[in-house]
Each structure stands twice: as C-alpha cells, then as structure tokens.
C-alpha cells in the first residue's frame, strides 16, 4: 500500500482511502483529506519529518507517522 508519506517532494498524487480511526481520522477528513482529493508534497522539514503538502489550496504540515494512514495512488 502506497501512503502519503511515500510520495516524493515535488510530486502530486490522489487519495484513495483514509485508514486509521477516531479523532485523527476525523481531523484529517475535516481538513479535506478524503477519497479522491489530489494533493502535492511541497517540501520536507529540515530534519526529514514532517512533510508539507498543498491540498485544497492551502498548506498542511503532517508527520510521516500520521501520513501513513492516508492511502494514495
């Protein structure tokens, strides 16, 4: 399964499914990370984690650990 954390800097992809549960999952959904949403990985923090993505016209910072629940194409 390819996840959001696997997408390289500068690449774009589309969300296939949101795994995980509870508050984190709901928070990601509320922020607009749902099935079919396309996004672009803009950059990675100086120490390698977290990553910054552009989604729905704004910038979002997310840890690779949490990005692992987001399955992408």
């Amino acid at each position, binding site marked *: 399964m390819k996840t959001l954390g696997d997408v390289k800097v500068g690449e774009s992809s589309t969300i296939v499914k*949101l795994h995980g*549960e*509870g*508050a*984190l*999952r*709901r*928070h*990601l*959904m*509320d*922020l*607009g990370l*749902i*099935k*079919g*949403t396309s996004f672009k990985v803009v*950059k*990675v*923090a*100086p*120490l*390698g*984690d*977290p990553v*910054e993505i552009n989604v*729905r*016209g*704004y*910038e*979002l*910072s*997310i*840890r690779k650990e*949490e990005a692992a629940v987001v399955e992408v194409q």
Partner: protein
Amino acid sequence: MADSQIHVALAGNPNCGKTTLFNLITGANGYVGNWPGVTVEKKEAKLLSDKNVTITDLPGIYSLSPYSPEEQCSRDYLMSGEPDVVVQVVDATNLERNLYLALQVIETGLPVVVALNMADLVEKNGDKIDTDKLSKKLGCPVMMISALKNKGIKELFEQVKKSAASKGQVPEHKFDSSIEDVLDHIENNLPASVPANKRRYYAVKLFERDADACKLINLTKEKAARVEELVAQCEQDCDDDAESIITGERYGVIAHIIDECLTKAPAKMSTSEKIDRVVTNRILGLPIFVVIMFCVYYIAVSTLGGTVTDFTNDQLFGTDGWYVLGQGRDAYDAAVEAAGDNADSVDPAQYGPYVPGITTVVHDALVAGGTEDGGLVDSLVCDGIVGGLGAIFGFVPQMFLLFVMLSFLEDCGYMARVAFIMDRVFRRFGLSGKSFIPMLVSSGCGVPGVMATKTIENEKDRRMTVMTTTFIPCGAKLPIIALLMGSIIGDSSTTAAWISPLFYFLGVFAVIASGLMLKKTKLFAGRPTPFVMELPAYHFPAIRSWALHVWERCWAFIKKAGTVIFASTVVVWFLSNFGSYNGSFGFLPAMDGIPEEFMDYSVLAMLGNLVAWIFAPLGFSTWQATALTVSGLVAKENVVATAGSLLSVADAAETDPSLWTAFAGMFPTMGACVAFGAFNLLCAPCFAAMGTIRNQMDSGKWTAIAIGYECAFAWVIGLFINQFYNLLVLGQFGFWTVVAIVLLVAMLFQIFRPMPKYAWTDEDETNTASAAVSA
C-alpha cells in the same frame, strides 16, 4: 427574546481573521474566561457601536465534530439556545476549506450571516466571488468584509441585527439523493420535540453516529435500531463509513458551489510561498531559525530587556538610585573609589541629577514621619512590600519586549513554521515543536519562559512544557553556580567557564529525562498528539491585535502572578524577621542584645530545623541550607546574599573567596555541596515563576503536580549526587545508597521502557462509546 439583548456568536476556522474582527468591533475590552470544564479560552464583549449586542468569540475550529474540546464547546454553545445569530467568518482566499465549517454551522438551523473576510486580498489576487449567488446557494446572507482594513463592518452588523430577528434557515444545500433519502427517513424518526430548523442537524449527526447527539436525542430502542439499519445499508451501498460519506458529500457540495461562485485568477506564486521557500528551506531552515531565536533572546533577555530589568530591580525599586540619562555616574563612581572604605559617606546627589531608588525614598519618608529606622514598619514596607513589588515589576520590561517579538512571530505565521522545523526533535520527549521557545527564554528568566508556553495549543504538550521549562538554569541561578564553583574549586573566574555549562547540561538532561518519563505516566498517557497543522499564509499582523496580544499577556502576569508573589514575599519576610529570642516572641531586629545574625532565631530557622531531615540523605541537613533554599524561592539571586548574612560574611558576593570557604564549611563533603547546588537549580522555581505556572496551568491541581514533580525530581538528583559521591569517592555504603540505586534503576526503567499499554485507554474509551452507540 424577552429583553432587547442580541447574542452574536463569532465562528470560523483558525487564522480566518476572527480575532481581528472581534477586537475591531468590541474595542477588545472583552472578558476573557474559560469554557466550563475545559481550558479553552472564551471571550465575550459588547459591540462598540451598540451596547445591546453581546459578541462571543468561539475558538477557531475546522469542524463541529465531537473530538476536540474546542469543537465540543463551540457546538455546545451554538446548540445552547443562547446565540440569536451566528457570524460565520470565512477566509475568502481559502473558500473551499472554510466553507466546510460554514455548511455545518448553517445546518444547526440558527440564523447565520457569512462574512467573507480578507476581501482586500481577494481583490489583490484578482479573484472574483459572486456573493449573491453564494448567498442563494448557502441560503443565508453573505457579506464581503475586511477586518484588517475596517471595510464592510457596519453593513455586516446591520444585516446581523436583521437576521437575529429571523427564525433561522433550513439549509439549502442538498447531498446526493440516495443520502438525502436516508436523512429524510432519520428526520421522520426524530421525536416531535426537535424543532423544524434543527431536524436536519440532528439527522446528520445521527447518521454520523455522533455519540453526544445520540445521547441528547435519546431515540426509542426500536427507532434507534431502525436508524442504525438505514445507515448500515447506506454504508454498504457506498462502500464507506458514515463519517466519510457525510464529509465527502459536504466537500462535494462545496466543489459545486465554488464552480459557480468563484472565478480564480491564473495562479502565480504568492508572497507567502516565496518567503517559505527560504524560511523553511531544507538547508537554510534551521540556521534561519537559530538566528531568529538568538535575536529574540539577545534583545529580550541579554541586552535591552536585561538592562531595563536590572535598572528596575536595583535602581528604581532598590536602594541604588539612578542618574537622569547617566549624567554624573562617572564622577560618582570615581568618588566612591577614592573614598575607599568610607564609600557609604559619599552623597550621590552631589554629582549630578540623582534620583534615589523607591526603597530609599519610602524609607526616608517613613523615618521622617517618625517611624523607627530599621523598625517593624520600616522593614515590612521597605523589604517586604516595596521589595516584593519590585520583584514583580522588574520582570515586566523583559516580558514586554519578549511578547512584542513573540506575538509578532506568532501573528505573522512564523510560529507554525517553528513547530514544523523543530517537531522532529521535541516529539521524542513528549514535547511539541513549539516547546523550544519557552525553553530558550527560560535560560534568561523562567517567568516569561512559562508565559511563552501560551503559544502551544495542545494541552498535554503545554502542561509538559510548563513542568519542565524551569529546569533550564535562568539568569538568577548563575550566581549560585559561581558560588558553588568557587567553593568546590576555589576559583570561579577561570574554571566556571567550563563548569557552568555542565549545569546547563544538567538542566537539559532534566528536561529530556522528565519528558521521557512523564509521557509514559497516566497523567500524560495517550497517543502522541497528532501533528496535523495548517501552515497559514504569512501576513503582517494588525497592529491593534498585536498590541492587544502583548498587553493581555503582560497584564495577566502583573495581575495574577502579582498577587501570589506579593503575598509570598511578605510571608517570607515575616518568617525570617520574626522569632523568639530570650524567651520572647517578636520582631527580631528590634530586640535587645540580638546578635547581627538574628535569622538564627527566626521562625524560618525553626521551620528549617523541622524539615532539615528531608535533606539529610542529600548531605545537607542544617537549617541554614534549608533557609537558603527557602530564600531562593523568593528569588534565586537571594541565595548568595542570604548565604552571606547566614554565614556572617559581610557584603558577600559570589566571587568572594571568604564566602566560598564559609559556604563550603556548611557541607560535610563536596558531594553534599554539589547536591545542594543541583537541588536548588532544579527544585521549584522562584515565587514569580510559580505564580506564572499557576496562571498558565489555570488549575490548582496541575500547579501542585508541576511544583511537586520539580521538587521530587530535584531531590532524587541531589540524592544521586551525594550518595554516589559517598560510594565512589569515599567508599561509604549505607541505607540511602541502596535507596539511590533502586531509584536510579527505576528511573532508567521508566526512561527506556516502551510506551505502556494503558497509554491507549482514552482511545479505547472512544471505541467503547462508539460501540455502545452502534449496538
């Protein structure tokens, strides 16, 4: 409404300009409190232009889901029946995500006015929003405003008053027909007591299996089963869970609305993106961060702030006094030098426009008014009250400067980037990327350090940072370090250069070890807080909000911490000046034949003797050592001066070799001496910092936990130092050696063991709750 009062709720995403709007329309003379039961800030104020309108600023949220305290209290307030109308503030430059919350607020059935904020930026970008069409699609009035430029605000509130008189709207937007069918069925199953404009809201919430809403509606068993059957069937048809279906439908509706109402100018690189290309650059990001932090620290703590604080402490409030613009200072210094031992006889007023310190002025006024020189009243007023107030106000200039800079960094959007850059390092210790700033500031002074934790949104991270940040040695602890070094090595000037960093390492070690241990305790248990955070676009903060931010924080300190510190200082003054001598109890300095070191007979000495046994395992069980620790609570820089007076070394300074010898003589071994130092550096900070901790935690229980933990940790570290010194250097072995070894093993175990199972209990509770609902 029986009265003519209108209650307006301000809702919106974080960073949508809600607070700027609130400050603008209320003049920000608002009442700041907390929502009951949670430490989420609640602001309430009257509209400037109409005192009959009360505005409640809800916390910035992304959704009305039941998961975070901010979201919960927002929706509780919306559904409480108090607000007559909701102003939904929308960042017009980011319609898509902002409308997601707007749809949910509209679904509550309350009258809503959508305020498209940042109209000026939309225009600048060349985008066009068709507000009439948007208004039709959303089923409520839509107004363009700019809170920053004060545009469209008057019109907005005319509309708000009109809408407040209306009954509210039934939401216009419709989901996919298959979902609408199910929602219709659920609506039909709702009890008749649910009013028409709220039926849709509850139908959607029941569809989502929202635990709070289910409890509130309390369907009959039969109906609940029927609803569950419908939802389950729908989930099967869509091959997705209920929450995802609704979220997907909402974003679907939004995509449709945006297609029709928004014409976007061709995308070009925004200023924000340009700044971020440099500031969060993979290579430049960290160096830039270090430079910015160094500047903040340097200006607020080392140079400007430090100078002003020293001035306030020593010259304005102290006995030194000051020269206007420094005129005559050099001549005075030269005269003092020339006078040698008679320095006290030099009158500073002869050398320039001299203004005596407040303590001196008050003292002279009291004596002139017939009060006994050095008597009870003089001592209470000068040492207790003026001294106490000075200790409080001395920090204000430093804090002011610090908050000017920190609030700017926060309001302009850089703080979110700090968290982005530093997260990797701090999350290992159960802290947040934003914990760095408080720690850095604490190396100057713990008071603004603890205050700086205010920028950490997450409660657990904030509490953990408050608990550990004062472990970092502050400026006032440096004399203690110098005194220790002098006593141990006999030279503070050369060797202190490499030894004092050791105490900083001890501080950093204390932070890391505490972070690793505490995050595995039940207090902080739970999944590491998710770090999913918006990086808002950079913008120059509204001067008004910025100034208010600084003022609110400084005032909160002066007011709340002030009372605590002030009371504590007076209590310590009483303890060290009252006692019994020659069989009579009273004010010691005024007694007949009392020796110079009257503190030996004070209540403080008695109490010191009572609790001295606690420090026996650490090697310093004299009451003097205990009294020194207590005087350190008033202000750490007091320790050296108190040591001087307790040990009868006149005019003692930390660089005075006679004080070193006397100080070293207080302790049986060098291990005990270092243990004393370590304990005093790590234990509860001064009253000023404790007052601030109380203020920041906003809970007596958590303040007690924080201070208790700090003292216990300091005691254990002191025990290690003394016992292991005894064992390894002196070859002594005893009961306390065993205790030290057991504690060391326990500490290492807690640091290195994996995250325990119970850490996930809060998650399990949610699961059981949702299981109960679906059952």
